[in-house]
């Protein structure tokens, strides 16, 4: 626990713990609204989905390891690649980044929870219920099989008659609620709950990245909600949005889907880059070079990424002039990524690098993202994309950026922050081994795919003929993918061993600079007994000892110090420099977020089963929840 020079005369620390702790056992499991517990839960749940999605990939690779294998039937293969992609995007990459944000954001900005703790719990419950809903499709042998992108008309009722695509469409629209409310929470928390003195100019880059992430989610997710939602209206009720013979448009679906789909990949990349911007400086023992450049680049990416979506549709026959515009913007978006890249290089160049496991994953990320970014620029070149799109070249590119440039930072973040989260160090040797296995396996698995694309291998095929010369490279890909999986397994083992036998982690094992490290490992439920007063971008490097604010006499400053912690409150600040404004009571734990989420899940199941009563009941419950929330606004 952080030591202080002046102890409050009030109650003992144990009483403080009691005020903040969750109810024990099963009730506590469902009623917690603690951002750290929710964040942890997100991360662990996501890794379960990662493992499941990863195993699906390995089974697909067994099928494709040689020509004309019979490991999987075509329908099974089509289900696997659909569920693999959908899982990795919707049930792993996006929520795990939200989960890290959940845990880290309030701590990095020096506050005691999120702006809307009950909404936070709600977003987790929606996520996990959506995942369960989606996977329950296997129980009725109707797993989605239209591709993770689910293009019409293939996914219209006429060509996909079963429930498969309804699990997809309803699941995607449902999980979007979780992402969206999470984004609301991140934005409002960052605006209104920063520690005093933490001006925008002093925000950790990770917090900037979560702000950009959140704004992108706000403006992008509606498009996929519409794509999936209108598809479901066509399927469930017979509307004609995507039916050409009734005046609808096939391409409309693609525009709606990719208007979200492209920003989505930057929604994933931006927080990953934000994490790297926290990790590289710590292990270079110096501040990030070009802070303003990096922050501006993240914001620029946020904006520009909304202007490139048609590059996923280069082969659809649109006029070349329109396509050329999108090609140009797709080239331009490389520049802010390049700026960040050289900021990272400059940081290491002028620092002294320590090769810890998080740093290894960061270096691996750099080498992999460099290649993924380069191939991205290549496919922005419109005529080249006419050859590359829908081939294994794109499979290579997308995995270099969505696996390499997102998953490697996630693993770096895991090794970096897990000691803070669990209070135990991970094993460095096992970490190094895991990294090298993953790095080598990754490149063996995905690099040859570039070549397979040139050999004419299209995407999403369950088998290929023996005379084409694709066998050898596919075998290498399969071997690499298993090696990658082994590397992941080593980290999971590391996490398990650390849980039971890891060395106790000190407050700040890496000698890092930001506020989350100014607590014990793991932190107390209330994070900060007294909220830090910030005067630098690197409080723990520049402000020693760290000043923490006592409670003041008025409403605006009462929450800062131990008195505020004892009253289960947290300060509200505002303005560019985060000056004190008022006090916010943190709500008591409650199962209502779970009930509300479950009610919505019931509504979704009702839509799937076309059971009007079930659907209406679920919707009514949702209305009740909304009314209850409005009733409770402004309670003091």
């Amino acid at each position, binding site marked *: 626990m952080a030591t202080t020079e002046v102890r409050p005369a009030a109650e003992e620390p144990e009483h403080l713990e009691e005020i903040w702790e969750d109810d024990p056992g099963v009730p506590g499991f469902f009623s917690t609204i603690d951002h750290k517990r929710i964040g942890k839960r997100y991360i662990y749940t996501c890794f379960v989905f990662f493992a499941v999605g990863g195993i699906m990939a390995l089974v697909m690779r067994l099928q494709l390891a040689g020509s004309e294998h019979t490991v999987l039937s075509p329908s099974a293969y089509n289900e696997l690649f659909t569920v693999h992609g959908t899982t990795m995007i919707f049930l792993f990459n996006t929520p795990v980044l939200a989960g890290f944000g959940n845990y880290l954001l309030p701590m990095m900005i020096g506050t005691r929870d999120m*702006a809307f703790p009950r909404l936070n719990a709600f977003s987790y419950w929606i996520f996990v219920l959506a995942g369960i809903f989606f996977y329950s499709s296997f129980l009725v042998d109707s797993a989605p099989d239209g591709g993770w992108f689910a293009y019409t008309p293939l996914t219209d009722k006429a060509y996909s008659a079963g429930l498969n695509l309804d699990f997809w469409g309803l699941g995607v629209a449902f999980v979007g609620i979780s992402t969206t409310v999470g984004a*609301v929470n991140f934005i409002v928390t960052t605006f209104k709950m920063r520690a005093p003195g933490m001006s925008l100019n002093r925000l950790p880059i990770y917090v900037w990245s979560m702000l950009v992430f959140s704004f992108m989610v706000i403006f992008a997710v509606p498009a996929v909600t519409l794509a999936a939602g209108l598809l479901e209206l066509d399927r469930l009720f017979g509307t004609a949005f995507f039916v050409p013979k009734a005046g609808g448009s096939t391409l409309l679906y693609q525009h709606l889907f990719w208007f979200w789909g492209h920003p989505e990949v930057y929604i994933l990349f931006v927080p990953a880059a934000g994490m790297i911007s926290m990790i590289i400086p710590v292990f270079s023992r110096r501040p990030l070079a070009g802070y303003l450049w990096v922050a501006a680049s993240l914001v620029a990416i946020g904006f520009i990424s909304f202007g490139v979506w048609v590059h996923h549709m280069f082969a659809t026959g649109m006029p070349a002039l329109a396509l050329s515009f999108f090609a140009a913007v797709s080239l331009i978006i490389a520049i802010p990524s390049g700026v960040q890249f050289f900021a990272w290089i400059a940081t290491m160049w002028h620092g002294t690098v320590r090769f810890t496991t998080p740093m290894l994953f960061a270096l691996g990320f750099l080498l992999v993202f460099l290649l993924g970014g380069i191939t991205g620029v290549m496919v922005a070149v419109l005529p080249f994309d006419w050859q590359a799109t829908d081939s294994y070249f794109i499979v290579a590119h997308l995995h270099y950026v969505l696996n390499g440039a997102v998953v490697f930072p996630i693993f770096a973040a895991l090794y970096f922050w897990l000691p803070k989260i669990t209070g135990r160090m991970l094993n460095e040797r096992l970490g190094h081994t895991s990294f090298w296995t993953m790095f080598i396996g990754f490149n063996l698995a995905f690099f040859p795919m570039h070549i397979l694309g040139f050999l004419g291998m299209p995407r999403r095929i369950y088998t290929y003929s023996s005379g084409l010369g694709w066998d050898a490279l596919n075998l290498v890909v399969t071997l690499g993918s298993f090696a990658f999986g082994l590397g992941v397994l080593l980290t999971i083992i590391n996490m398990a061993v650390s849980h039971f036998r890891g060395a106790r982690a000190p407050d700040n094992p890496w000698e890092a600079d930001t506020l989350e490290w100014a607590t014990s490992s793991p932190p107390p439920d209330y994070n900060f007994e007294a909220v830090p007063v910030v005067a630098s971008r690197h409080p723990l490097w520049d402000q020693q000892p760290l000043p923490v604010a006592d409670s003041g006499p008025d409403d*605006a400053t009462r929450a800062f110090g131990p008195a505020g912690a004892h009253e289960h409150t947290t300060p509200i600040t505002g303005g560019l420099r985060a000056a004190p404004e008022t006090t916010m009571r943190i709500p008591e734990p409650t199962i209502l977020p779970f009930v509300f989420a479950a009610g919505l899940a019931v509504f979704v199941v009702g839509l799937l089963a076309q059971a009007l009563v079930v659907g209406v009941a679920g919707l009514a419950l949702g209305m009740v929840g909304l009314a209850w929330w409005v009733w409770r606004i402004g309670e003091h």
Partner: protein
Amino acid sequence: MTATSPQTIQTVIVAPPSARSRGRSVGWWGIVVVIATEGTIFLGLLSTYFFLRASSPRWPPAGVAAPELPLISVFTVVLLASSLPIFWAEAGIARGQQGRLRAGLLVSFLLGAAFLGNQIYEYNHLEFGWTDHAYASIFWTTTGLHGLHVLGGLLISLVVQAKAWSGKLSAEHHESMQVFSLYWHFVDAVWIFVFSSLYLSPHLQ
């Protein structure tokens, strides 16, 4: 970095910084962000409307007349007018005037309910069904989603009115009124775009 045990953080208690005047509440910011995302959904639906229109040789399709204007124009005025009592009510409660709050909320509620009533009437008299063709689908879906937002707003209005009548709102604390009024103005603003796109613009081509 200090030489001694940099892995344990030393702190020192200081006086808190001085306060600034209160800015917007977290609830207000929350509803602003929600409005941004909901607004984007409507933007997407209207984009869909114009995309389908651009892809069609005739719009509305053959055999379908452009929407009739007289009745809906009247009720457009009714809906937009329902924002005025909200402004008046919110300004009132900011000065502690409970009467203005309650009256404004009630009048706005009645105007909004009238609009919704007309929408139900219009749905019963539309010559095309939801599934007839793409034009019908986008028309029903866009106006329907807006109608659901009006319905949700009326529900929230009832809750806020219940709070108002039981004295839970005051000059210092009327956050739920601020949140509701932003939402209601949003619903009205969206209608301006929906009305212009779906009702007016087919008559302008």
